Protein backbone atom coordinates (compact mmCIF):
# COMPACT_ATOMS: atom_id res chain seq x y z
CA UNK A 1 0.00 0.00 0.00
CA UNK A 2 2.93 2.31 0.38
CA UNK A 3 3.37 2.48 -3.38
CA UNK A 4 1.48 5.77 -3.38
CA UNK A 5 4.12 7.42 -1.25
CA UNK A 6 6.18 8.74 -4.07
CA UNK A 7 3.24 9.70 -6.21
CA UNK A 8 3.39 13.29 -5.18
CA UNK A 9 3.24 16.32 -7.34
CA UNK A 10 -0.49 16.46 -7.69
CA UNK A 11 -1.01 17.55 -4.10
CA UNK A 12 2.30 19.21 -3.35
CA UNK A 13 3.77 18.64 0.05
CA UNK A 14 0.62 17.21 1.50
CA UNK A 15 0.05 13.53 2.02
CA UNK A 16 -3.68 14.03 2.21
CA UNK A 17 -5.71 11.85 -0.16
CA UNK A 18 -8.64 12.83 -2.32
CA UNK A 19 -11.65 11.00 -1.01
CA UNK A 20 -14.18 8.82 -2.84
CA UNK A 21 -17.55 8.82 -1.11
CA UNK A 22 -20.43 6.53 -2.05
CA UNK A 23 -23.78 8.06 -1.22
CA UNK A 24 -26.90 6.22 -0.16
CA UNK A 25 -30.31 7.73 -0.59
CA UNK A 26 -32.28 6.08 2.17
CA UNK A 27 -36.04 5.70 2.42
CA UNK A 28 -37.66 3.76 5.24
CA UNK A 29 -34.35 2.23 6.19
CA UNK A 30 -33.51 0.97 2.70
CA UNK A 31 -31.06 2.27 0.14
CA UNK A 32 -32.98 3.41 -2.92
CA UNK A 33 -32.12 4.58 -6.39
CA UNK A 34 -33.78 7.26 -8.43
CA UNK A 35 -33.02 10.19 -10.62
CA UNK A 36 -33.83 13.48 -8.92
CA UNK A 37 -36.01 11.70 -6.41
CA UNK A 38 -38.35 10.16 -8.97
CA UNK A 39 -38.77 6.55 -10.04
CA UNK A 40 -37.39 5.33 -6.77
CA UNK A 41 -36.32 1.70 -6.69
CA UNK A 42 -34.95 -0.47 -3.91
CA UNK A 43 -31.16 -0.91 -4.07
CA UNK A 44 -30.54 -2.97 -0.99
CA UNK A 45 -29.78 -2.91 2.70
CA UNK A 46 -27.73 0.18 3.58
CA UNK A 47 -25.53 -1.63 6.06
CA UNK A 48 -24.74 -4.52 3.73
CA UNK A 49 -23.87 -2.07 0.96
CA UNK A 50 -21.87 0.08 3.37
CA UNK A 51 -19.69 -2.84 4.39
CA UNK A 52 -19.11 -3.79 0.76
CA UNK A 53 -18.06 -0.23 -0.05
CA UNK A 54 -15.81 -0.09 3.00
CA UNK A 55 -14.13 -3.30 1.89
CA UNK A 56 -13.66 -1.87 -1.62
CA UNK A 57 -11.89 1.15 -0.20
CA UNK A 58 -14.56 3.82 0.24
CA UNK A 59 -13.05 6.66 2.25
CA UNK A 60 -16.29 7.77 3.84
CA UNK A 61 -19.98 7.18 3.33
CA UNK A 62 -22.96 9.50 3.14
CA UNK A 63 -26.53 8.50 3.96
CA UNK A 64 -29.24 10.92 2.88
CA UNK A 65 -32.68 10.26 4.29
CA UNK A 66 -34.79 11.36 1.35
CA UNK A 67 -38.18 10.82 2.90
CA UNK A 68 -37.40 11.99 6.39
CA UNK A 69 -40.66 12.67 8.10
CA UNK A 70 -40.94 12.73 11.82
CA UNK A 71 -41.84 9.05 12.13
CA UNK A 72 -39.27 7.89 9.66
CA UNK A 73 -36.50 9.68 11.49
CA UNK A 74 -36.65 6.95 14.13
CA UNK A 75 -35.89 4.42 11.43
CA UNK A 76 -32.90 6.51 10.43
CA UNK A 77 -31.58 6.72 13.98
CA UNK A 78 -31.84 2.94 14.23
CA UNK A 79 -30.02 2.56 10.93
CA UNK A 80 -27.27 4.91 12.12
CA UNK A 81 -26.80 2.76 15.22
CA UNK A 82 -26.57 -0.41 13.13
CA UNK A 83 -24.07 1.18 10.77
CA UNK A 84 -21.96 2.71 13.55
CA UNK A 85 -21.71 -0.64 15.28
CA UNK A 86 -20.04 -2.22 12.26
CA UNK A 87 -18.42 0.42 10.09
CA UNK A 88 -14.81 1.47 10.68
CA UNK A 89 -14.73 4.49 8.36
CA UNK A 90 -16.45 7.86 8.92
CA UNK A 91 -19.98 8.48 7.75
CA UNK A 92 -22.27 11.46 7.33
CA UNK A 93 -26.05 11.47 7.71
CA UNK A 94 -28.35 14.06 6.19
CA UNK A 95 -31.98 14.65 5.35
CA UNK A 96 -34.64 16.29 7.44
CA UNK A 97 -32.33 17.73 10.06
CA UNK A 98 -33.92 20.98 11.13
CA UNK A 99 -32.93 21.37 14.77
CA UNK A 100 -29.86 20.92 16.91
CA UNK A 101 -31.72 18.07 18.63
CA UNK A 102 -32.15 16.26 15.30
CA UNK A 103 -28.42 16.57 14.71
CA UNK A 104 -27.51 15.46 18.21
CA UNK A 105 -29.72 12.38 17.97
CA UNK A 106 -27.86 11.25 14.85
CA UNK A 107 -24.39 12.11 16.17
CA UNK A 108 -25.10 10.34 19.43
CA UNK A 109 -26.37 7.33 17.49
CA UNK A 110 -22.93 7.16 15.91
CA UNK A 111 -22.83 9.41 12.85
CA UNK A 112 -19.52 11.23 12.51
CA UNK A 113 -21.04 14.20 10.71
CA UNK A 114 -24.46 15.53 9.84
CA UNK A 115 -25.34 17.41 6.70
CA UNK A 116 -27.94 20.15 6.59
CA UNK A 117 -29.52 21.71 3.55
CA UNK A 118 -32.96 23.34 3.28
CA UNK A 119 -33.32 23.89 7.01
CA UNK A 120 -30.07 25.80 7.10
CA UNK A 121 -31.18 28.04 4.23
CA UNK A 122 -34.38 28.78 6.10
CA UNK A 123 -32.58 29.24 9.42
CA UNK A 124 -28.82 29.72 9.01
CA UNK A 125 -28.23 29.74 12.77
CA UNK A 126 -28.74 25.97 12.63
CA UNK A 127 -25.18 25.77 11.29
CA UNK A 128 -23.70 27.75 14.19
CA UNK A 129 -25.77 25.77 16.68
CA UNK A 130 -24.44 22.45 15.42
CA UNK A 131 -20.88 23.70 14.94
CA UNK A 132 -20.88 25.46 18.28
CA UNK A 133 -22.08 22.40 20.15
CA UNK A 134 -20.35 19.58 18.30
CA UNK A 135 -17.60 21.29 16.33
CA UNK A 136 -17.32 22.44 12.72
CA UNK A 137 -15.80 19.12 11.77
CA UNK A 138 -19.15 17.37 12.09
CA UNK A 139 -21.24 20.05 10.37
CA UNK A 140 -21.50 19.57 6.62
CA UNK A 141 -23.51 22.03 4.56
CA UNK A 142 -25.16 20.45 1.53
CA UNK A 143 -25.85 22.89 -1.30
CA UNK A 144 -27.91 21.96 -4.33
CA UNK A 145 -26.68 24.42 -6.93
CA UNK A 146 -28.17 25.10 -10.32
CA UNK A 147 -26.63 27.21 -13.02
CA UNK A 148 -28.57 30.45 -13.28
CA UNK A 149 -30.19 30.62 -16.67
CA UNK A 150 -30.25 34.36 -16.97
CA UNK A 151 -28.39 37.33 -15.59
CA UNK A 152 -31.69 39.06 -15.09
CA UNK A 153 -33.12 36.25 -13.06
CA UNK A 154 -34.98 37.93 -10.19
CA UNK A 155 -38.04 39.60 -11.46
CA UNK A 156 -40.72 37.33 -10.12
CA UNK A 157 -41.30 38.36 -6.57
CA UNK A 158 -40.80 42.08 -6.71
CA UNK A 159 -38.99 42.27 -3.41
CA UNK A 160 -36.69 45.14 -4.11
CA UNK A 161 -36.58 46.06 -0.49
CA UNK A 162 -34.69 42.91 0.24
CA UNK A 163 -32.19 43.22 -2.55
CA UNK A 164 -28.63 42.81 -1.39
CA UNK A 165 -29.74 41.55 1.95
CA UNK A 166 -27.35 39.34 3.79
CA UNK A 167 -27.94 35.64 3.37
CA UNK A 168 -27.85 35.04 7.06
CA UNK A 169 -30.51 37.47 8.05
CA UNK A 170 -33.51 35.64 6.75
CA UNK A 171 -34.52 33.75 3.69
CA UNK A 172 -37.98 32.99 2.52
CA UNK A 173 -38.96 30.39 0.04
CA UNK A 174 -38.92 31.90 -3.38
CA UNK A 175 -36.89 34.83 -2.20
CA UNK A 176 -34.97 36.01 -5.20
CA UNK A 177 -33.74 39.39 -4.15
CA UNK A 178 -30.09 38.79 -3.62
CA UNK A 179 -27.84 40.25 -6.25
CA UNK A 180 -24.35 39.07 -5.99
CA UNK A 181 -21.40 40.72 -7.52
CA UNK A 182 -19.06 38.01 -6.39
CA UNK A 183 -20.69 34.74 -7.27
CA UNK A 184 -18.71 34.14 -10.34
CA UNK A 185 -15.44 32.91 -11.56
CA UNK A 186 -13.55 33.88 -14.59
CA UNK A 187 -12.62 30.69 -16.22
CA UNK A 188 -9.16 31.14 -17.58
CA UNK A 189 -8.99 27.97 -19.58
CA UNK A 190 -10.86 25.50 -21.71
CA UNK A 191 -14.23 27.08 -21.32
CA UNK A 192 -16.07 28.67 -24.17
CA UNK A 193 -18.23 30.67 -21.80
CA UNK A 194 -16.24 33.80 -21.36
CA UNK A 195 -18.34 35.50 -18.77
CA UNK A 196 -19.54 35.19 -15.23
CA UNK A 197 -21.22 31.96 -14.24
CA UNK A 198 -23.67 32.04 -11.39
CA UNK A 199 -25.44 29.32 -9.51
CA UNK A 200 -28.67 29.46 -7.55
CA UNK A 201 -29.37 27.59 -4.34
CA UNK A 202 -32.18 25.07 -4.67
CA UNK A 203 -34.01 23.78 -1.62
CA UNK A 204 -36.65 21.19 -0.82
CA UNK A 205 -34.95 18.46 -2.79
CA UNK A 206 -34.53 20.73 -5.77
CA UNK A 207 -38.17 21.76 -5.97
CA UNK A 208 -37.58 25.39 -5.03
CA UNK A 209 -35.14 27.87 -6.46
CA UNK A 210 -34.28 30.41 -3.80
CA UNK A 211 -32.50 32.69 -6.22
CA UNK A 212 -29.71 32.95 -3.69
CA UNK A 213 -26.17 32.89 -4.92
CA UNK A 214 -24.79 29.45 -4.11
CA UNK A 215 -21.27 30.80 -3.68
CA UNK A 216 -22.33 33.59 -1.33
CA UNK A 217 -24.37 31.11 0.67
CA UNK A 218 -21.34 28.84 0.89
CA UNK A 219 -19.17 31.67 2.20
CA UNK A 220 -21.79 32.64 4.73
CA UNK A 221 -22.15 29.05 5.90
CA UNK A 222 -18.41 28.68 6.41
CA UNK A 223 -18.40 31.88 8.45
CA UNK A 224 -21.19 30.35 10.55
CA UNK A 225 -19.13 27.23 11.16
CA UNK A 226 -19.79 24.73 8.37
CA UNK A 227 -16.75 22.46 8.21
CA UNK A 228 -17.29 21.02 4.74
CA UNK A 229 -19.48 21.70 1.71
CA UNK A 230 -21.28 18.88 -0.05
CA UNK A 231 -21.82 20.57 -3.39
CA UNK A 232 -24.32 18.98 -5.74
CA UNK A 233 -24.71 20.24 -9.26
CA UNK A 234 -28.37 20.03 -10.06
CA UNK A 235 -27.57 20.37 -13.74
CA UNK A 236 -25.33 17.32 -13.70
CA UNK A 237 -27.05 15.19 -11.08
CA UNK A 238 -28.28 11.89 -12.45
CA UNK A 239 -26.93 12.61 -15.92
CA UNK A 240 -23.77 10.55 -15.64
CA UNK A 241 -22.01 13.09 -17.85
CA UNK A 242 -19.27 14.35 -15.55
CA UNK A 243 -19.11 16.71 -12.59
CA UNK A 244 -19.65 20.47 -12.92
CA UNK A 245 -16.01 21.49 -12.89
CA UNK A 246 -16.58 25.25 -12.93
CA UNK A 247 -18.95 25.08 -10.01
CA UNK A 248 -16.60 22.98 -7.96
CA UNK A 249 -13.59 25.09 -8.76
CA UNK A 250 -15.37 28.31 -7.92
CA UNK A 251 -16.17 26.92 -4.48
CA UNK A 252 -12.79 25.39 -3.89
CA UNK A 253 -11.01 28.64 -4.79
CA UNK A 254 -13.30 30.79 -2.68
CA UNK A 255 -13.77 28.71 0.46
CA UNK A 256 -11.30 27.59 3.11
CA UNK A 257 -13.04 24.29 3.87
CA UNK A 258 -13.04 21.02 1.91
CA UNK A 259 -15.44 20.68 -1.03
CA UNK A 260 -17.17 17.39 -1.79
CA UNK A 261 -18.24 17.40 -5.44
CA UNK A 262 -21.47 15.63 -6.29
CA UNK A 263 -23.61 15.07 -9.35
CA UNK A 264 -22.59 13.64 -12.68
CA UNK A 265 -20.04 10.97 -11.77
CA UNK A 266 -19.38 8.89 -14.87
CA UNK A 267 -16.04 7.13 -14.87
CA UNK A 268 -12.47 7.46 -13.61
CA UNK A 269 -11.81 10.38 -15.95
CA UNK A 270 -14.71 12.30 -14.48
CA UNK A 271 -13.19 11.92 -11.00
CA UNK A 272 -9.73 12.85 -12.27
CA UNK A 273 -11.20 15.97 -13.88
CA UNK A 274 -13.03 17.07 -10.76
CA UNK A 275 -9.96 16.54 -8.60
CA UNK A 276 -7.57 18.38 -10.93
CA UNK A 277 -9.66 20.96 -12.78
CA UNK A 278 -12.43 21.20 -10.21
CA UNK A 279 -9.97 21.16 -7.28
CA UNK A 280 -12.39 19.02 -5.31
CA UNK A 281 -11.19 17.53 -2.04
CA UNK A 282 -13.62 14.65 -2.31
CA UNK A 283 -16.11 13.33 -4.82
CA UNK A 284 -19.39 11.63 -4.18
CA UNK A 285 -21.36 9.24 -6.33
CA UNK A 286 -24.29 6.87 -6.00
CA UNK A 287 -25.55 5.23 -9.15
CA UNK A 288 -22.22 4.11 -10.57
CA UNK A 289 -21.56 2.21 -7.34
CA UNK A 290 -25.06 0.90 -6.60
CA UNK A 291 -25.43 -0.36 -10.15
CA UNK A 292 -21.96 -1.94 -9.97
CA UNK A 293 -20.88 0.04 -13.02
CA UNK A 294 -17.69 0.84 -11.12
CA UNK A 295 -16.12 -0.77 -8.11
CA UNK A 296 -14.35 1.67 -5.86
CA UNK A 297 -11.04 -0.17 -5.90
CA UNK A 298 -10.91 -0.20 -9.69
CA UNK A 299 -11.85 3.46 -9.81
CA UNK A 300 -9.19 4.41 -7.28
CA UNK A 301 -6.54 2.42 -9.10
CA UNK A 302 -7.14 4.47 -12.25
CA UNK A 303 -7.19 7.74 -10.33
CA UNK A 304 -3.95 6.73 -8.66
CA UNK A 305 -2.40 5.97 -12.04
CA UNK A 306 -3.26 9.53 -13.09
CA UNK A 307 -0.95 10.75 -10.33
CA UNK A 308 -3.62 11.72 -7.85
CA UNK A 309 -3.10 10.61 -4.27
CA UNK A 310 -5.82 8.23 -3.13
CA UNK A 311 -5.86 5.60 -0.43
CA UNK A 312 -5.40 2.19 -1.98
CA UNK A 313 -6.40 -0.80 0.10
Amino acid sequence: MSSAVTKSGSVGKSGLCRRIIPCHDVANGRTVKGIKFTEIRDAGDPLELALIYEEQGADELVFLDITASHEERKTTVDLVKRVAAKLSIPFTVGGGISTLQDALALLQAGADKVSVNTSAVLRPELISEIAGTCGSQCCVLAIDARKAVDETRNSASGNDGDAGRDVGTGIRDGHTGIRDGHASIRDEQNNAVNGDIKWDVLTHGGRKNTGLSALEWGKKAVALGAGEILLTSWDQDGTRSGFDLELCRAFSDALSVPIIASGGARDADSFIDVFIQGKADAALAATIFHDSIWSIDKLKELIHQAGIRVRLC
Partner: protein
Amino acid sequence: MTQTHDRKTDLETNAETGDSGNTATGSVELVDVGGGNIGSVMRFLERMAISYRHVQSPDQLTGKSPLILPGVGNFGAVMQHLRKNGLADPVIQSVQKGTPFLGVCVGMQILFEGSEESPNEPGLGLLKGNVVKFTHGKVPQIGWNLITPQPSVRAIYPDQEYVYFVNSYFPRPADQEVVSFTAEYFETFCAAVRVDNITAFQFHPEKSAKAGERLLTRWLKEVGVLS
Protein backbone atom coordinates in the same frame (compact mmCIF):
# COMPACT_ATOMS: atom_id res chain seq x y z
CA MET B 1 -17.97 -12.89 13.58
CA THR B 2 -21.37 -11.33 13.43
CA GLN B 3 -22.22 -11.00 17.08
CA THR B 4 -23.63 -7.74 18.23
CA HIS B 5 -22.49 -6.20 21.41
CA ASP B 6 -24.48 -3.76 23.46
CA ARG B 7 -22.84 -0.80 25.08
CA LYS B 8 -21.61 -1.53 28.56
CA THR B 9 -21.35 1.22 31.09
CA ASP B 10 -20.14 -0.91 33.95
CA LEU B 11 -16.88 -2.70 34.25
CA GLU B 12 -17.18 -6.25 33.05
CA THR B 13 -14.14 -8.39 32.59
CA ASN B 14 -15.58 -11.40 30.89
CA ALA B 15 -13.55 -12.61 27.98
CA GLU B 16 -15.29 -12.32 24.65
CA THR B 17 -14.27 -12.48 21.04
CA GLY B 18 -14.88 -9.44 18.90
CA ASP B 19 -15.08 -8.83 15.16
CA SER B 20 -11.33 -9.08 14.82
CA GLY B 21 -11.09 -12.57 16.25
CA ASN B 22 -8.94 -11.42 19.18
CA THR B 23 -9.97 -12.26 22.70
CA ALA B 24 -10.57 -9.57 25.27
CA THR B 25 -8.81 -10.37 28.51
CA GLY B 26 -9.09 -7.03 30.24
CA SER B 27 -10.95 -3.79 30.18
CA VAL B 28 -10.21 -0.10 29.79
CA GLU B 29 -11.34 3.12 31.42
CA LEU B 30 -12.66 5.63 28.91
CA VAL B 31 -12.45 9.20 30.17
CA ASP B 32 -15.40 11.41 29.27
CA VAL B 33 -14.29 14.65 27.62
CA GLY B 34 -17.69 16.30 27.20
CA GLY B 35 -19.61 17.16 24.06
CA GLY B 36 -20.75 13.60 23.40
CA ASN B 37 -17.64 12.94 21.37
CA ILE B 38 -16.48 9.62 22.71
CA GLY B 39 -19.00 7.52 20.83
CA SER B 40 -16.73 6.39 18.03
CA VAL B 41 -14.15 5.00 20.45
CA MET B 42 -16.92 3.28 22.41
CA ARG B 43 -18.15 1.58 19.27
CA PHE B 44 -14.67 0.50 18.33
CA LEU B 45 -14.31 -1.17 21.74
CA GLU B 46 -17.70 -2.79 21.26
CA ARG B 47 -16.65 -4.13 17.85
CA MET B 48 -13.61 -5.61 19.57
CA ALA B 49 -15.77 -6.95 22.43
CA ILE B 50 -13.68 -4.99 24.93
CA SER B 51 -15.52 -3.81 28.00
CA TYR B 52 -14.97 -0.33 29.29
CA ARG B 53 -15.87 1.91 32.14
CA HIS B 54 -17.18 5.30 31.06
CA VAL B 55 -15.38 7.59 33.51
CA GLN B 56 -17.31 10.77 34.26
CA SER B 57 -16.15 11.49 37.79
CA PRO B 58 -12.94 10.92 39.79
CA ASP B 59 -14.37 8.01 41.82
CA GLN B 60 -14.88 6.05 38.60
CA LEU B 61 -11.20 6.34 37.75
CA THR B 62 -9.48 3.40 39.43
CA GLY B 63 -6.17 3.60 37.59
CA LYS B 64 -6.15 -0.20 37.56
CA SER B 65 -7.01 -0.44 33.88
CA PRO B 66 -5.49 1.32 30.90
CA LEU B 67 -6.89 4.78 30.26
CA ILE B 68 -8.22 6.01 26.94
CA LEU B 69 -8.80 9.70 26.44
CA PRO B 70 -10.59 10.39 23.15
CA GLY B 71 -11.76 13.75 21.96
CA VAL B 72 -12.92 15.83 19.08
CA GLY B 73 -13.45 19.53 19.27
CA ASN B 74 -11.90 22.32 21.23
CA PHE B 75 -8.77 22.02 23.38
CA GLY B 76 -10.01 24.53 25.96
CA ALA B 77 -13.47 22.97 26.17
CA VAL B 78 -11.99 19.52 26.81
CA MET B 79 -9.62 20.83 29.51
CA GLN B 80 -12.41 22.83 31.14
CA HIS B 81 -14.60 19.74 31.16
CA LEU B 82 -11.86 17.65 32.77
CA ARG B 83 -11.12 20.31 35.40
CA LYS B 84 -14.77 21.02 36.16
CA ASN B 85 -15.41 17.32 36.72
CA GLY B 86 -12.30 16.87 38.85
CA LEU B 87 -10.70 14.52 36.31
CA ALA B 88 -7.60 16.45 35.25
CA ASP B 89 -5.47 15.78 38.34
CA PRO B 90 -6.46 12.10 38.72
CA VAL B 91 -5.59 11.52 35.07
CA ILE B 92 -2.20 13.20 35.54
CA GLN B 93 -1.52 11.14 38.67
CA SER B 94 -2.54 7.88 37.02
CA VAL B 95 -0.25 8.49 34.08
CA GLN B 96 2.63 9.52 36.36
CA LYS B 97 2.15 6.29 38.31
CA GLY B 98 2.54 4.33 35.10
CA THR B 99 -1.01 3.50 34.05
CA PRO B 100 -1.03 2.84 30.28
CA PHE B 101 -2.54 5.83 28.52
CA LEU B 102 -3.94 6.21 25.02
CA GLY B 103 -4.90 9.67 23.75
CA VAL B 104 -6.80 10.26 20.52
CA CYS B 105 -7.03 13.58 18.63
CA VAL B 106 -7.65 16.31 21.22
CA GLY B 107 -6.94 13.57 23.76
CA MET B 108 -3.38 13.66 22.41
CA GLN B 109 -3.14 17.44 22.28
CA ILE B 110 -4.05 17.97 25.93
CA LEU B 111 -1.02 15.90 26.98
CA PHE B 112 1.01 19.01 26.15
CA GLU B 113 1.37 22.28 28.02
CA GLY B 114 -0.98 24.44 26.00
CA SER B 115 -2.54 25.19 22.62
CA GLU B 116 -2.85 28.15 20.28
CA GLU B 117 -6.51 27.21 20.15
CA SER B 118 -7.09 28.09 23.79
CA PRO B 119 -4.20 30.20 25.10
CA ASN B 120 -5.78 30.69 28.51
CA GLU B 121 -6.46 27.04 29.24
CA PRO B 122 -3.36 25.02 30.15
CA GLY B 123 -3.11 21.40 29.10
CA LEU B 124 -2.24 18.44 31.32
CA GLY B 125 1.46 19.19 30.85
CA LEU B 126 2.52 15.53 30.85
CA LEU B 127 4.62 16.22 27.75
CA LYS B 128 6.68 19.32 27.02
CA GLY B 129 5.63 21.39 24.05
CA ASN B 130 2.66 23.22 22.60
CA VAL B 131 -0.14 22.65 20.14
CA VAL B 132 -0.12 24.87 17.06
CA LYS B 133 -2.36 25.52 14.07
CA PHE B 134 -1.73 24.48 10.47
CA THR B 135 -0.58 27.45 8.45
CA HIS B 136 -1.24 26.15 4.94
CA GLY B 137 -3.93 24.29 3.07
CA LYS B 138 -7.55 23.93 3.94
CA VAL B 139 -8.14 23.87 7.65
CA PRO B 140 -9.28 21.62 9.20
CA GLN B 141 -7.38 18.89 7.46
CA ILE B 142 -10.06 16.29 6.74
CA GLY B 143 -9.35 12.89 5.30
CA TRP B 144 -6.79 10.14 4.91
CA ASN B 145 -3.14 11.05 5.24
CA LEU B 146 -0.03 8.93 5.25
CA ILE B 147 1.79 8.42 8.53
CA THR B 148 5.47 7.47 8.62
CA PRO B 149 6.95 5.57 11.56
CA GLN B 150 9.96 7.20 13.21
CA PRO B 151 13.13 5.22 13.99
CA SER B 152 12.16 4.64 17.62
CA VAL B 153 9.07 2.62 16.70
CA ARG B 154 10.02 1.00 13.39
CA ALA B 155 10.65 -2.32 15.08
CA ILE B 156 7.03 -2.52 16.24
CA TYR B 157 5.27 -0.34 13.63
CA PRO B 158 7.25 -0.95 10.43
CA ASP B 159 4.74 0.33 7.88
CA GLN B 160 3.49 3.59 6.56
CA GLU B 161 -0.30 3.69 6.80
CA TYR B 162 -3.14 5.84 5.58
CA VAL B 163 -5.24 6.97 8.53
CA TYR B 164 -8.13 9.37 8.98
CA PHE B 165 -7.45 12.85 10.29
CA VAL B 166 -9.77 15.67 11.27
CA ASN B 167 -7.67 18.42 12.78
CA SER B 168 -6.78 22.08 12.58
CA TYR B 169 -4.05 21.85 15.23
CA PHE B 170 -1.18 19.51 15.98
CA PRO B 171 1.35 19.20 18.79
CA ARG B 172 4.92 20.37 18.51
CA PRO B 173 6.80 18.35 21.16
CA ALA B 174 9.86 19.91 22.74
CA ASP B 175 11.48 16.50 22.75
CA GLN B 176 11.54 15.01 19.24
CA GLU B 177 12.27 11.60 20.71
CA VAL B 178 8.64 11.20 21.74
CA VAL B 179 7.40 11.45 18.13
CA SER B 180 6.40 8.01 16.87
CA PHE B 181 4.79 8.95 13.54
CA THR B 182 4.93 12.01 11.34
CA ALA B 183 2.75 13.06 8.41
CA GLU B 184 2.79 15.83 5.80
CA TYR B 185 0.26 18.62 5.49
CA PHE B 186 2.23 21.32 3.74
CA GLU B 187 4.69 20.83 6.58
CA THR B 188 5.86 17.79 8.50
CA PHE B 189 3.81 17.41 11.65
CA CYS B 190 3.71 15.12 14.65
CA ALA B 191 0.98 12.55 14.01
CA ALA B 192 1.60 10.37 17.06
CA VAL B 193 3.70 10.14 20.19
CA ARG B 194 4.97 7.25 22.24
CA VAL B 195 6.99 7.54 25.41
CA ASP B 196 7.00 5.27 28.46
CA ASN B 197 3.36 4.42 29.23
CA ILE B 198 1.95 7.13 26.93
CA THR B 199 0.72 6.42 23.39
CA ALA B 200 -1.28 9.01 21.50
CA PHE B 201 -2.59 9.54 17.98
CA GLN B 202 -3.56 12.83 16.35
CA PHE B 203 -5.66 10.89 13.83
CA HIS B 204 -8.69 8.71 14.50
CA PRO B 205 -7.58 5.07 14.53
CA GLU B 206 -11.13 4.02 15.38
CA LYS B 207 -12.24 5.51 12.02
CA SER B 208 -9.26 4.34 10.00
CA ALA B 209 -10.49 0.99 8.72
CA LYS B 210 -8.00 -1.88 8.98
CA ALA B 211 -4.95 0.36 9.41
CA GLY B 212 -6.46 1.92 12.50
CA GLU B 213 -7.56 -1.43 13.83
CA ARG B 214 -4.00 -2.72 13.52
CA LEU B 215 -2.63 0.24 15.50
CA LEU B 216 -5.26 -0.02 18.21
CA THR B 217 -5.05 -3.79 18.43
CA ARG B 218 -1.32 -3.60 18.92
CA TRP B 219 -1.68 -1.12 21.76
CA LEU B 220 -4.47 -3.15 23.38
CA LYS B 221 -2.27 -6.24 23.27
CA GLU B 222 0.70 -4.38 24.69
CA VAL B 223 -1.33 -3.24 27.66
CA GLY B 224 -2.86 -6.66 28.20
CA VAL B 225 -6.42 -5.93 27.20
CA LEU B 226 -6.39 -8.20 24.17
CA SER B 227 -4.70 -11.50 23.66
